[in-house]
């Protein structure tokens, strides 16, 4: 990773990489001021003034202990610490787990507005994909350690189409081999992968309302089928 072994050279690596595992890892006994002092003491690229600036916009008091803060405040604190570090790569592992939608939105907003710029990469892993849909440049699905989808967001938008099919045309639509089908309020919504060349955009537009699917719908389509696919593959080998 960035030319260093993450096991044996973790300390050097962590000068360039920031990592938020999840919101519950800040030591609960620590005071906010101690967290600032400590990170300023050990991290060569930490800008204390910047962190203080982020904190000034929140209601977090310097003398509070982490255990006295709400979950959302702990996230804000952790983010303030991390965003004040001038790192090349920021890895967020389920950063919004357990936060309500208000904090989640705030989290990504401040991440984008205050932190992101041309030289930084942010990797977010999350199950709450709907939060990050409009933030991403690249998308990857991982199932049990295997990458099952890896594409840029442009590719995602041009490649996948979701069609709310008129009831009388469902049978026709099904012949075009959608990768997934679901029923919402009695209407069929079919998801197509245009790269498979079973259908093109015009054909689908004739079938009903066409739009870009949400990441979560694609996630369900790709992951939900996975177990079935694996079973099918296994049968094929057995024959």
């Amino acid at each position: 990773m960035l030319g260093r072994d993450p096991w044996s050279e973790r300390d050097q690596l962590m000068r360039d990489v920031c990592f938020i595992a999840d919101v519950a890892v800040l030591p609960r006994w620590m005071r906010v001021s101690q967290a600032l002092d400590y990170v300023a003491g050990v991290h060569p690229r930490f800008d204390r003034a910047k962190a203080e600036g982020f904190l000034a916009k929140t209601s977090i008091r310097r003398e509070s202990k982490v255990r006295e803060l709400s979950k959302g405040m702990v996230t804000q604190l952790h983010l303030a610490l991390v965003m004040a570090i001038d790192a090349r790569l920021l890895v967020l592992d389920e950063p919004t787990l357990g936060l309500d939608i208000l904090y989640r939105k705030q989290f990504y907003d401040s991440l984008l507005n205050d932190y992101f710029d041309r030289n930084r990469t942010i990797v977010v892993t999350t199950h709450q994909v709907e939060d990050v849909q409009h933030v991403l440049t690249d998308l990857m699905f991982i199932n049990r350690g295997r990458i099952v989808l890896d594409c840029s967001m442009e590719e995602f938008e041009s490649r996948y189409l979701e069609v709310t099919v008129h009831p009388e045309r469902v049978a026709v639509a099904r012949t075009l081999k959608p990768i997934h089908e679901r029923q919402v309020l009695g209407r069929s919504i079919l998801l197509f992968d245009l790269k498979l060349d079973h259908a093109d955009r015009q054909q689908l537009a004739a079938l009903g309302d066409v739009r870009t699917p949400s990441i979560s719908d694609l996630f369900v389509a790709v992951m939900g089928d996975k177990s079935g696919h694996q079973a099918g593959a296994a049968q094929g080998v057995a024959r």
Partner: protein
Amino acid sequence: MNTQSNAMHESPLDSQGIAPAVVSATRLMYWSVRRELWENRSIYVAPLAVAAVYMLGFLISLIWLPHSMREVAAHHPAPQLVELAMPYGHATWLLLVTALLVGIFYSLDALHGERRDRSILFWKSLPVSDLTTILSKVSIPFVVLPLLVFAITVILQLFMWLLNMAVLLVSGTGAATLWAQLPLFQMELVLLYGLTVIALWYAPIYGWLLLVSGWARRAPFLWAVLPPLAIAAVERIAFHTSYFGSLLQDRLIGFAARAFDLKDKGGVPVDPHFIPLAQVAPGRFLSSPGLWIGLLVAAALLAAAVRLRRYREPI
């Protein structure tokens, strides 16, 4: 959008060749030790509390001081010295035992607590190596606690001595005896020597406790204590020998016979309340193989703890 982020955008960040930003090893160590003191306030609160309680007891005992000084004056000089030194010796031993207990429980929790509360993920996300972390943690029982106990004991004994003198001067008896007989400076020197000896001799014990603390998923205390006892017991039952048991016993109390002459020139056992400077035997202690083997074992245990922490995750 605000002044901070503007400033940030103006500063050109060369992502390929960022200037080598390095924090010196001393500074990393300093902040790591400070962090240990923040988290474990018992390191200094416990000895201070014990010193305060002892001081309270000593204050009450001052009521009987003039009376007992008159009795002391009636004895021969040698026992007189021991009796004078008695409360000072008690203070020393009490603080030594406190430091030992604090050191044991601190070491057992040092690498277990951070995994239990998941904060290890936060510590590991910062550019502090596992070696620095382990060294900062072992420095607590090895350096910080001995120095702290030394400082607290010296201050406590100085206060005791001043109060002693004040009471005796007012009551008009024994002040001269105390002044002439109680070698406070010598006692502190012996204490410093003793603290160094104990720290060096117990190094493998603290190494073992830290390793277990980093390894055990739960109940680090039991994992640290029961296996050695079990080995000793099995050896005894199976082979009717007690080599391992003697080894343990020697590690716990063996420093005394090596670092001090426990009998004076006349063959009389030295009273542990007052060990004269003449009884220290640093040459013998430093040349005893047990010390150096112990330090090597400690280094190996700590190296294992460093290695282990690399792969440790929250429990």
